[in-house]
Every structure is written in structure tokens, then in C-alpha cells.
């Protein structure tokens, strides 16, 4: 019957299509950072190790699939009923101990191989020793933004993580300690490593050693509430010069510019300082992100929009424009207040 013919052709065609899309998609195997965070484009040791392991596993499972699906396809064709009137029954076979034993033993062996390979990789990644040159960063997850503290450098960064470039000759891995201030989150930058959860009252660890400079993207990987989708991650892998410059800037106190004194006044009297910190001022709120170096960032609201004066003004006027349900309330500022406070914030480089 034509129907069965179609089944196999369909199946094969579909598999080929999938394969084609997979391979043709140039973003899958890019070198260095990409706006498409593919797990098959690793730029750091944990991600590369996982990538190599995945190829091994794919080979084995692919082999199993081809074999068994091939058998199924063969069976469908070879043993289909020919002729509608053929009502004789085929030979009834109830089982075969040898065959059944064989197809039990072989999977057991495959499992042993897979397990040993996997276990080895788990220990290699999770229990990797921390070299002296490692950079320590503490990540604290919030609804719906990221806090990055560099305890030894005295820096509190927000949403955009800067890490130094690492190389086999000059290893400078970054060791992250992950906590949460509220609910469960997950730190996932696919090109750099697998993800790890941020859990209140539970400390987790992750390490990365990015080998190519540039911007790597990711986002929160554990549903954490209404704006989970916009809790985006940007990891900037900096050359030594770039990193030193960034650190130096972040270590400065907030810029104090008298020309925007009115805006600063609005900021301090309109309850902004209850949630936000600007170092060197009376604003010491910890619930929301630290704004001391707001203008050193490329995006606002953990990637919800780009950091331009217009977007900043609109974000301040009504956060729900970019991130409906985010925990920053609209403060009902007048147009004049908005202009002033935006001008003030624009000086916080």
C-alpha cells in the first residue's frame, strides 16, 4: 500500500531536513561569541568539554537510532500483509532466550561506557581545583536582575558581567559563587558553560575560562516569576587592557556633577534611594540595582532595552513599557522631573 511507502519516505525526508537545518545554520558552529548562544559553539573549557562529550553521546545514540529505526523500517516493509484476502496466520514465535539475552547485555555494556565517560567529566568540571590567578565573583540573583560583586576588587556591578580573557598559557579563570536574594534563578551563558541554579540559603559554584574576547549572551534558566523571560545576561570577556580599564572605572565613586543637582534632588526625594545605591550619596538602597555606573552599561533592566537617554527616560516613567510586571514601580513623575532625573542619571558613568 502506498501509505506505508510514504511513511518511510516521509521519515527519511524529515530526518534529512532536520539535519540540513542543523548543519546549514552557520550560527551553530561559530568561533567566538555570537548573538545566538549555541551550546555547540563553546568558548570556554567547561563548555568545550561538554561539547566534546555531547558529540560522543550523539555518536552512540545516533548509532542506536539508525540501527533500531532501520530494523523497524525493514520490518514494516518486509512483513506487511500482502493481499487483502490472506487470512493465514504466520508462525507464532513466543520468545528466544539467546536473542533476549543478547539485547539485554549489549545495552548494559553501552550504559557502562556512557556512565564512566560521564562520571569522569562530572568530576573534571565540578571538582576542578581553583588556581591562584582565578578571579572571584559573587553572583546574587534577584527578581529580575543580576548583581555581580567582586569582593577582592571592591566592585558591585549589575547585569553585565566583565571577566578577563583566559588562555592556556596565561590562565585567568573566573570562579563564580552563586546565591539568591529571593527565589530560584539559574545562570546560563551557553557558550561559556552549563548552567547552575541560584538558590536562597544554598551556595553554588561555577567556573569559566573564556578563550575568545567579546560579548556572550545568556539568560536566567529557572522560571522565577513574571519577568523571568527578560532576566538576560551579558558577559563581556575583556582583554587585559579592557578589563583593567573597566575595573578602574567601576572602582570610582559616583560622578558628582553640579549641573544636574536638580535631578539628583528628584532622585533623592522621590523614593528612588530607597531601592537604589549611588556611592558617595545618601542613596544606599539595596533592593534594586546599584546605579553608580549606570551609563557604563549597554542595556537597561537586565537587557530589556538598550541604554539610550530616550529609553532611560521611558523606563523611569513607566517600567511596564519594557518589562511589564517588573518590581520597579512607576513613580508618577512629572515631565519636568523626568527630564531632570534622566539628566542626572545620564551623568553616572
Amino acid at each position, binding site marked *: 500500500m502506498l*501509505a506505508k511507502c510514504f511513511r518511510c519516505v*516521509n521519515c527519511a525526508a*524529515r530526518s534529512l531536513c*532536520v539535519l540540513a*537545518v542543523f548543519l546549514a*545554520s552557520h550560527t*551553530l558552529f561559530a568561533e567566538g561569541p555570537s*548573538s*545566538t*548562544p*549555541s*551550546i*555547540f559553539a563553546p568558548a570556554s573549557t567547561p563548555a568545550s568539554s*561538554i561539547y566534546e*562529550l*555531547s558529540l560522543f553521546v550523539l555518536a552512540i*545514540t545516533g548509532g542506536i*537510532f539508525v540501527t*533500531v529505526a532501520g*530494523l*523497524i523500517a525493514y*520490518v514494516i516493509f518486509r*512483513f*506487511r*500483509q500482502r493481499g487483502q484476502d490472506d487470512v493465514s496466520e504466520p508462525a*507464532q514465535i*513466543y*520468545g*528466544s532466550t539467546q536473542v*533476549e539475552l543478547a539485547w539485554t547485555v549489549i*545495552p548494559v555494556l553501552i*550504559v557502562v561506557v556512557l*556512565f564512566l565517560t560521564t562520571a569522569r567529566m*562530572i*568530576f573534571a568540571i*565540578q571538582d576542578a581545583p581553583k588556581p591562584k590567578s582565578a578571579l572571584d565573583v559573587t553572583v546574587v540573583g534577584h527578581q529580575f536582575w543580576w548583581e555581580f560583586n567582586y569582593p577582592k576588587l571592591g566592585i558591585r556591578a549589575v547585569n553585565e558581567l566583565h571577566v578577563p580573557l583566559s588562555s592556556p598559557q596565561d590562565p585567568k579563570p573566573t570562579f563564580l559563587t552563586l546565591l539568591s536574594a529571593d*527565589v*530560584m534563578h*539559574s545562570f*546560563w551563558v*551557553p557558550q561559556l*558553560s*552549563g*548552567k547552575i*541554579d541560584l*538558590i*536562597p*540559603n*544554598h*551556595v553554588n559554584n561555577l567556573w569559566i575560562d573564556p578563550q575568545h574576547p567579546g560579548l556572550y*549572551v545568556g539568560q536566567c534558566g*529557572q*522560571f*522565577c*516569576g*513574571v*519577568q*523571568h523571560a527578560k532576566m*538576560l545576561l551579558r558577559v563581556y570577556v575583556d582583554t587585559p587592557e579592557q578589563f583593567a580599564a573597566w575595573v578602574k572605572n567601576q572602582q570610582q565613586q559616583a560622578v558628582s556633577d553640579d549641573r544636574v543637582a536638580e535631578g539628583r534632588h528628584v532622585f533623592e526625594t522621590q523614593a528612588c534611594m530607597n531601592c537604589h545605591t549611588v556611592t558617595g550619596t545618601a542613596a544606599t538602597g539595596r533592593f534594586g540595582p546599584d546605579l553608580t555606573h549606570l551609563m557604563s552599561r549597554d542595556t537597561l533592566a537586565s537587557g530589556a532595552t538598550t541604554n539610550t537617554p530616550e529609553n532611560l527616560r521611558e523606563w523611569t516613567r513607566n517600567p511596564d513599557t519594557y518589562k511589564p*510586571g517588573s518590581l520597579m514601580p512607576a513613580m508618577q513623575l512629572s515631565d519636568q522631573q523626568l527630564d531632570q532625573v534622566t539628566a542626572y542619571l545620564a551623568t553616572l558613568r
Partner: protein
Amino acid sequence: MADSTYPMPGSLAEAPRQRWSQAAILEWLHSWVTTVDHKKLGILYMLYSIFFLLVGGVEAILIRIQLMQPNLHFISPQVFNRLFTMHGTTMVFLVGMTYIFGFANYLIPLMIGARDMAFPRLNALSFWLTFFGGLLLYYSFIGGGGLYGQGNAPDVGWWAYAPLTSRAFTPGHSTDYWALSLIVTGFGTIGASVNVVATALCMRCKGMTLMRLPLFVWLNVVTSALALITITPLTAAQIMLLIDRYLGGHFFDTQAGGSAVVWAHFFWIFGHPEVYVLVLPAFAIANEVIPVFSRKAIFGYPAMAAASVAIAFVSLGVWAHHMFTIGMTSVGNAFFVLSTMLVGIPTGIKIFNWVATMWGGKIRFATPMLFCTGFLVQFLLAGLTGIMLSVAPWDWQLHNSYFVIAHFHYVLVGGIVFCIFAGIYYWYPKVTGRLLNETLGKWHFWLFVIGFHITFDLMHIPGLLGMPRSIYTYEANRGWGTLNMIISIGGLIQAVAVLVFAVNLVWSYFKGKEAGNDPWDAWTLEWAAASPPPAYNFATDPVVTSRRPLWDLKHPEDPDWKYE
């Protein structure tokens, strides 16, 4: 239709046809609401299951429309979060847990030659508990004002992780609806499971030893036994959650030393065996359909029975593979890698047994067999992506991504829903006396399988490209847009296929070809009863001497008992 089981002296002649007066309609409704007959309850469970399949499907379509392109505003994030939570909860509890008992209740007494289930009134109670639990869950859409006046449907994910579910982070009653409705349906599940086990162990007809039980019954017994062990951990966790929310408890209150990780452990201790509770009855259906349409006995009956028991046991020890990213020790992670891979072995063996059953047969590709063949290939692939996910380091990338969603939909839709369709096409003639239309059946199959593969084959790719789950939208420059568009279109094709199925169900009820007792030339006891069977199933208690009593009758020169 005349009763065509063994005619007894003084047995009932056919009742005169009812005229549809209002009194008759009320009486008809009343008989359904108060029934304790396993066949009627089985049908009620199936109607409930199919209804919520459609509802959950609509929720899925809405989700897919929102995700077709980046930054769409078709639905708000709040509504989106409610939709995916309700979609998951509905499909698992109101579709998955009900189809199990729909098939089991209808077929087990017939297959073992019994008059009814062991506890008919408990049977009815269990159904109505499940029914009202589902109603309570859906009432959440309209009940209460909540904070936004938009109702309180659960919006915390079907896994409801702590501490997101505490009053501090989820004000309003969404979580309470989730917990309470599932506690209620949980009681229904326990009652139904008790009934299945007791019936199969205590009410078999003469000659039907445990090793002569149809594999359908075996698998449902194993399912029910597993359900007994696995549902109450969820109930326990939900009671703890309610204590935290209303009595000031601190189980999951991290400020007071409680642990969010413990919720995850308890939930997945329930959640993983639960998926085996969902899938084993699908295997049960395949175990009946594949042999009959291959015209051969199932290959390796003892191994199949043993494998099911093995799966049930091992599945109790794999739960933390849902938690590889939570930060367990490397030894803990490694243990769960091993146990998860091990559970793949008896599962894989089953696939081989099915293929061996088809080998050397004379396969007839009627609609039930089409669906079972699809199931075989798809379940194979689903199992293999499961192995991929069991490799913990790879799971550190894939966890909570669209790869996982593709994997489990491959099992749930590609495996279970395909088997449900196969089972319905196979047993519909027994239940109604009429065959489902073959042409519509083939349209249903081809549309559904094409739509299924478009959606769920491609869905693996965004996961590999870094797209997480539970997001109401995504950035335009991530390269996920085109794939999501095609995935959504596949969903719409599946929706059309299911509509064709719904039409078939209704049309065939009135106009389908009359089936007779045994339209498929099958071998288990239910095909000896009339279609539909009389209330008492069998006029005299059957006596069996092999696993395929009707094969023995049809082939007296070569009965099964010679080979078993």
C-alpha cells in the same frame, strides 16, 4: 443489539427502544451520574480525558501563537505564565491520569473475565473526586479577585518550585488552587489504583494465573502499584506548602532555615515515577495492538512483564536527574546519571520485543497499527534524547531549555498520545458497537504525525541554541524566530488532526460500520463479549488455559497452551 454471549434460559430479551421524552433523558443522565458500572465509568474517564486534551491543546496553541515571533504582544506575561502552568498541570493530571483509568476500568474486568471491578462504588467515588478536582483547578480562572482582578489560575509552573510559591512571592490564591485541586484528584487516583490492583489480583476467572494475564492488565497493575507509591509524596509536599502558606510553617522558608531544594526533591520523587505512571499504560495498549495487527503472539511475554516491574522499581531512584543543576555533589550527580541510564535498559528491551513481535508477522496497517508504529519510532527517539539528558554535564546545558520540552513532548505526545489514539481506534468498536471511520482515521494519523514531527523534531534545535523554557518572549537577534514560527505551524496542523479525530468520534457513533464482537480477529477475552458488552459482561464465567483464549478457540489444532 441482541446479547450474543452464551444464551441462558430466562435471559433478558432485548429491551424495547426508548422514546426520547424528557423523563427518559433525565433518567439517562441520572444513570450516568450514579453509575458504578466499570464500563460507564471507563467511558466517563475517557470523555473527561479527551475534553481536557482539547482544553490543554487550546492552551498550547495560544502559547505557540505568542511565541511565533520575538516580542509579540498577543498575550501578556502574566497570562502566558498561567497558560503554560495550566497546560502542564492539565495534561499531566487531567488527561494523563484519567486516560489510564479510562482504559483500565473499561477493559480489565472484561480481560480477566470478571463482572466488574473489585470495588464498584470506590470506582465511582474515585472518578468524581478526579472530576471535581479538575473543576476546582479550572475554577481558578474565574474565582477570586486576586491582585489584578483577573482570576487566580496557577502561574508558577506545573512544578511549582519554592520559594516562588510562598505568599511573599506569589500573592493571591493561584498556588492554593494548584495544591488543593491536585490533592483532591490525588485521592481519586489512589482509590482507582487500589481498585485496579485488587481487581487484577483477586477477581480473575478460572485458569487465569498471573502469567496468563494479558500484558495490558500486567502493565496497568504495575502502573497502579507505582501510582500508590508516587502520588502521596506530591500530596505530602503540597500539604507542607499549604502549611507554609497558611499556618506559618517553614518547610520551604529559606529565611528560617528551610530549604527550597527539599521542595524540588519531594516534587521530583513524585514527578519522575509519575511519568512512568503515564507511559506504562501506553505500553499496555501497544502490547495489545501490536501483536493483533502483526498476527503474532507478543515476543517474550515473561521478559515484558519482568521489564515493566523493573522499570517501576528503578524509576523510584532516578528523580534527581531533574535537578542536575541544583548543585548536588559530583557523587550525587554521578549516582543519578547511572540510575537514569539503567532505567533505559528495560525500556529499550521493550522496544526490541515489539519489533521482534512484528518480525515474521503479517502486519495489517489499520489505523490502530499506524499509530502504534509511529509510537515505536517516536518512543525510540524520545528514549535516546532521554539518554542524552541523563549525561549530567550535557544536561547542565540542556536543562530547562527547549530541548527538554522537545524530549518530554516526544514521550508524552509521540509516545502516549499516539498510543491513546491507537487504543481508541482499537477498542471503540467494543465500546460502541461501531468501527471508527478508516478514511478519517488515516487523515487523522497523517496530519497528526506530520504536524507532530514539524513541531517536535525542530523544537530540539532552539534548545541547542540556548533558548530556555517558560519564557513569554525572546530577543529578536538570538536566531530563534524562524524555528519558533515553523514549530507553531506544526502545532496548528496537529490541532486540525485532532479536530478530524473529534469529528470521527461523533460521526462514527451514529454512522460507523457495525463491528460485531471481534472486528480485529483478536485473542483476549474482551472480544468474546458482545459489542457493547451487556451490563454483566459474560453470561457464564469464562475458563482459560492460555494467554490467548480466543486464539485457542480459533485454532484448536494449535493452541497456545502447548507452547507456554
